[in-house]
């Protein structure tokens, strides 16, 4: 053999290996992409489809073999809630996209399909379809829409009554009696306090979400946390319901806690009020008890309220989740209280635990790490 032949053979072999490697790399990339990809040739035959297509789109619909672009169209129409016009628009034009949703059990999955054409400088080779699971984005959009709807009602109601009451007082053509004027002013005052509460709820959510919640931690006696929280409950509610703290004299329970006392009071108050509000019993009752283990202190808030079904238990800490989210629901609230509570407990490296039996009541437990007090640390009252 001539030297140059050997040389050429070797070169070819190197090229071949290089090409094979590149091809394998490319295949691995396509295979592991977090998007689905389908390539269709000039004759509308499917020449490539990655695993995403099979796994994400098809798994619950059984294994489907798609051979042509036609198959793809009819498959999308079959599984999703979209119209033939939308699908045809995508397939008949260049560089379009289509959003569609697929029902998976109780959940809706959202997908976005983009079309792109594949060509060399001179020749049209075929089309590619890129499929992305946009369920997360859609759900965030949904949250934002909910936020606007809730803000609209929660904020507009007090503003309407403040505006109406103030304009009533401003009327110069009428003499209102003193009592009525006082009533209006009292109402305005209440509404302003309500708006302030709403605002602090929104700010808390924002702080927890962006990780900018700053805690003012210190040491304080357990019984202060409880008694100061009970002091914050409106008198009317305290008198008409049985809200009690049952002391535990077990010496192993730390009497001093470490954390942001105001914030922990906020959580405890929220849990107590939930026990009263979500409660249909004629004798509403909330019981507060304490227990501990080596690492954590547990503050239990037990009520005899409506309880929470298994199905809803995981979701109650989600923002805006309300078991009854219809405008006709009986109890108000922003659906933000518990999500702030759990956010605050997690900022404390703690948590909130839930046990519940529908119809019998729930126990919400604040779990707070025990951090023992050093010699130089000061109490906070």
């Amino acid at each position, binding site marked *: 053999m001539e030297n140059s032949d050997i040389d050429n053979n070797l070169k070819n072999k190197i090229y071949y290996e290089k090409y094979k490697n590149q091809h394998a790399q490319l295949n691995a990339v396509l295979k592991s992409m977090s998007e689905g990809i389908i390539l269709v040739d000039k004759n509308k035959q499917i020449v490539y489809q990655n695993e995403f297509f099979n796994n994400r789109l098809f798994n619950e619909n059984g294994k489907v073999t798609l051979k042509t672009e036609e198959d793809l169209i009819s498959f999308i129409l079959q599984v999703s809630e979209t119209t033939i016009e939308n699908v045809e628009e995508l397939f008949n034009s260049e560089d379009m996209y289509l959003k569609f949703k697929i029902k998976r059990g109780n959940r809706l999955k959202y997908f976005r399909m983009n079309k792109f054409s594949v060509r060399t400088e001179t020749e049209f080779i075929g089309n590619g379809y890129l499929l992305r699971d946009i369920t997360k984005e859609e759900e965030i959009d949904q949250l934002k829409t909910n936020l606007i*709807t809730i803000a*609209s*009602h929660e904020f*507009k*109601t007090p*503003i*309407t*009554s*403040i*505006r*109406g*009451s103030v*304009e*009533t007082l401003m*009327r110069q053509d*009428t003499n*209102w009696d003193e009592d*009525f004027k006082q*009533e*209006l002013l009292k*109402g305005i005052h*209440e*509404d302003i306090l309500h708006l302030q509460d709403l605002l602090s709820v929104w700010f808390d959510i924002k702080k927890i979400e962006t990780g900018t919640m700053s805690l003012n931690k210190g040491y304080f006696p357990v019984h202060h946390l409880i008694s100061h929280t009970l002091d914050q409950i409106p008198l009317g509610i305290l008198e008409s319901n049985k809200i009690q703290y049952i002391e535990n004299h077990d010496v192993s329970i730390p009497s001093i806690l470490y954390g942001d006392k105001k914030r922990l009071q906020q959580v405890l108050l929220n849990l107590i009020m939930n026990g009263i509000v979500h409660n249909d019993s004629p004798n509403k009752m909330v019981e507060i008890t304490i227990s501990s283990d080596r690492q954590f202190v547990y503050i239990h808030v037990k009520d005899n309220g409506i309880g929470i079904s298994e199905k809803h238990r995981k979701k109650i800490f989600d923002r805006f989740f309300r078991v009854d989210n219809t*405008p*006709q*629901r*009986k109890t108000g609230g922003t659906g933000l209280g518990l999500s702030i509570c759990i956010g605050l407990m997690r900022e404390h490296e703690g948590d909130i635990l839930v046990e519940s039996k529908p119809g019998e009541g729930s126990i919400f437990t604040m779990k707070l790490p025990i951090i023992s007090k050093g010699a130089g640390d000061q109490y906070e009252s």
Partner: protein
Amino acid sequence: MSHSIAILDDEPKIVRFIKANLLSLGYKVVTFSDGEQFLNNFDMHELDLVLLDVMMPNMDGFTVLERLRKFSNVPVIILTARSNSNDLIEGFELGADDYLTKPFSLEELFARVKAVLRRTAHLDQTIYENKKVIIGNIDINLAQKRVFVDEKEMHFTNTEYLILEQLAIYADKVVSHEQILVSVWGAEYRNEVEYLRVAIARIRKKLKDAGCKNIANIISTYPGIGYSLVTKNA
């Protein structure tokens, strides 16, 4: 005679200031906080106007309106915190006469109340001597202020009747949006073409359901201009 107005809202503070102000203007006022209770007691009051809140517990305002419209054409102003136009259209489609978006000013409240009551009063005052307009199986009796289809009487709300009346008075001529809006709703509504569009759709639907054929040609649309009641070739 002073007009009677019902306020239906679950927010006591809102009810309180609306009630006090309407009383001070010489209206009679009854208040309700629950839709069911309002519907059950409706017959006990001779109401000239209802102010109806949308977001209420137990039964929302749209449901109340839908049920109310099965037996009464009393004028209704919707109070809503949602300024979303779909909500407004839903309200009009169910037969509301007007709406107020929360928060509203007292001035706005007074103006809308007066405008709606004036529209209703207008219905009793103008007299057309024995004038009848007949289009196919539709018989509009302007003197009696009644409409018949195949000799069966139709039920229109005051607003709907007044629109039809305007079109009938000027039958076979094009009546402009503005003219209808001003004469039916009042001068301050001259640009609210959407109100008119929804009301016309309701009138057409009622006539169609009663057995009128070709209704889009009888009440015909002149886009950007107005509407015309066509009596010929029907």
